[in-house]
């Protein structure tokens, strides 16, 4: 689509795009180029020179059991966060959609945790499950369950998943509720007249009609789990215990800034770049024209 009416001039528009162009070049393309360039070298132990290793960093990474484990951890983490937050949100949205009055109130009550930063959510959940002072871990102790996410890998994973999913419920709820309310009530009532019960109606009518929303949320939530949960991991577990919660983004940070392994960190950045690229393409290819009722 193009505008019919245009203003004349070449320098003015170039001047107008300059601020964005400069920022993008300096803080996006140059660093991305640097990451690609650095991924082909390893610095010597004194950081004085760089040695060309070609794809050596990548070969090393892909054969590194820790890096592979981090891939598996990331996959599991993303799936769990997506399923938990979307599941709870869908359940609440279905309930709210059944109400004639009051769904607006619940909406207000449920959407605001969107504004709570993942890192703050991390601190709140860390506080509840803290091994020494946490309220929930204390009550679990009364029940005879010894909670210790500092040592237990599954418990650590469970905690970061719940803390990450918790803040995400709002977002998913909002979109699910909108999707549900967009389904014509007449269709559902027609099914009800035919004697279809709630569960049958949900399975055969609501769920298929909701699938565009579901798919959209699926992609968006995976992106969230991959890239925006750093704060949760950093505050609660710091990637531990034994790297059990070291997702890919966390590993780039800890290898690059904590261990100062620049070649490996750069190679990891490049791999992440490819992953974001794929996710963005999926997002654009499928979501742009995803509704065909």
């Amino acid at each position, binding site marked *: 689509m193009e505008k019919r009416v245009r203003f004349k001039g070449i320098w003015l528009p170039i001047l107008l795009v300059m601020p964005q162009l400069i920022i993008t070049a300096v803080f996006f393309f140059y660093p991305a180029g640097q990451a690609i360039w650095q991924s082909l070298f390893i610095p010597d132990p004194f950081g004085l020179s760089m040695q060309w290793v070609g794809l050596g960093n990548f070969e090393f990474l892909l054969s590194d059991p820790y890096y592979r484990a981090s891939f598996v951890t990331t996959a599991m983490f993303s799936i769990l966060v997506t399923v938990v937050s979307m599941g709870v949100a869908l359940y609440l949205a279905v309930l709210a959609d059944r109400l004639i009055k009051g769904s607006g109130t619940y909406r207000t009550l449920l959407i605001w945790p969107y*504004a709570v930063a993942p890192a703050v959510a991390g601190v709140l959940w860390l506080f509840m499950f803290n091994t020494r002072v946490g309220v929930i871990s204390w009550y679990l102790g009364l029940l005879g369950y010894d909670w210790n996410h500092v040592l237990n890998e599954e418990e650590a994973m469970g905690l970061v998943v719940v803390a990450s999913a918790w803040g995400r419920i709002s977002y998913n709820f909002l979109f699910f509720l909108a999707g549900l309310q967009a389904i014509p009530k007449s269709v559902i009532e027609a099914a009800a007249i035919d004697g279809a019960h709630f569960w049958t109606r949900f399975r055969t009518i609501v769920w298929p009609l909701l699938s565009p929303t579901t798919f959209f949320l699926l992609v968006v939530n995976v992106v969230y789990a991959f890239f925006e949960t750093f704060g949760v991991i950093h505050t609660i577990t710091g990637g531990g215990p034994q790297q059990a919660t070291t997702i890919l983004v966390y590993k780039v940070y800890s290898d690059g800034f904590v261990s100062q392994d620049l070649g490996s960190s750069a190679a990891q950045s490049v791999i992440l770049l490819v992953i974001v690229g794929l996710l963005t393409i999926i997002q654009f290819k499928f979501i742009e024209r995803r509704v065909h009722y």
Partner: protein
Amino acid sequence: MTANPDPLAQTAAPTVKSQPDGMVEKRGASLWLTHLGLIIGVLFIFFPIWLAFVASTVTNAEVIRPPMPLVPGDRFLENYREALFSGINAPVARMMLNSLIMAMGIALGKIAISLLSAFAIVYFRFPFRKTFFWLIFLTLMLPVEVRIVPTYEVAANFGMLNSYSGLIFPLVASATATFLFRQFFMTVPDELAEAARVDGARPMRFFFDILLPMSRTNIAALFVILFIYGWNQYLWPLLITTDPSMNTIVMGIKQMLPTGDDFANWPIIMATSILAMIPPVAVVIGMQRLFVRGLVDSEK
């Protein structure tokens, strides 16, 4: 036009819901079960925040001797005063100011540069216009988490560590905002630009007098989302600010937790957590309509 599920339609047209009780609507026991389910959901969402609030109003002795109380104590004023004006590493008031500057800088900066470049792309024909468009598109694929080490080096080379410009500039470019304004400008009737041209108005005059006022709602909606985005940044401030007085509040909380075996000062930490939530939550609740709109717009 994408057919996004549009929460706006629901806010804008409550008439759909005012139809008389449909046969699938529930009454009696079932209605109560629906409410019960929702209330359990709301409680689940609220509980961590309630607990944080309670912890911020009692003494540390009460917190570290579990189980801590579940109703607020009487130390609200003392704890919040201590957090705001002395804090643990730096006064929280100072960290909130840093967060505010960062969030405003990112939100206004993104909006300003995106408005200008969208205006150029839509209303002018200039060399490399398509190239430029694709360059912006590519930035979608470069979240800061992916390019942290080299971006940090750039900021360090510019001497931007521990500075507001270091907190703001690397996060200011935004493909989403540019696309959003481009899309909106496309829907502005051509007659307006035509009339402006016939009247001999210069392009920038048209931009400021006509386009900008027309974009008011879009700008406001986007501002809400970007403000929350900026306020809630974590990784970038963590790298850029080593000086506690330049910490933002969201990243500063973690710095308050002791690393060793010491007991944390939980009431102050929790008061800080509550303070960190207040501005973005107030924005969401106070501007709910704009917030929902911004959320939907920015996902298109």
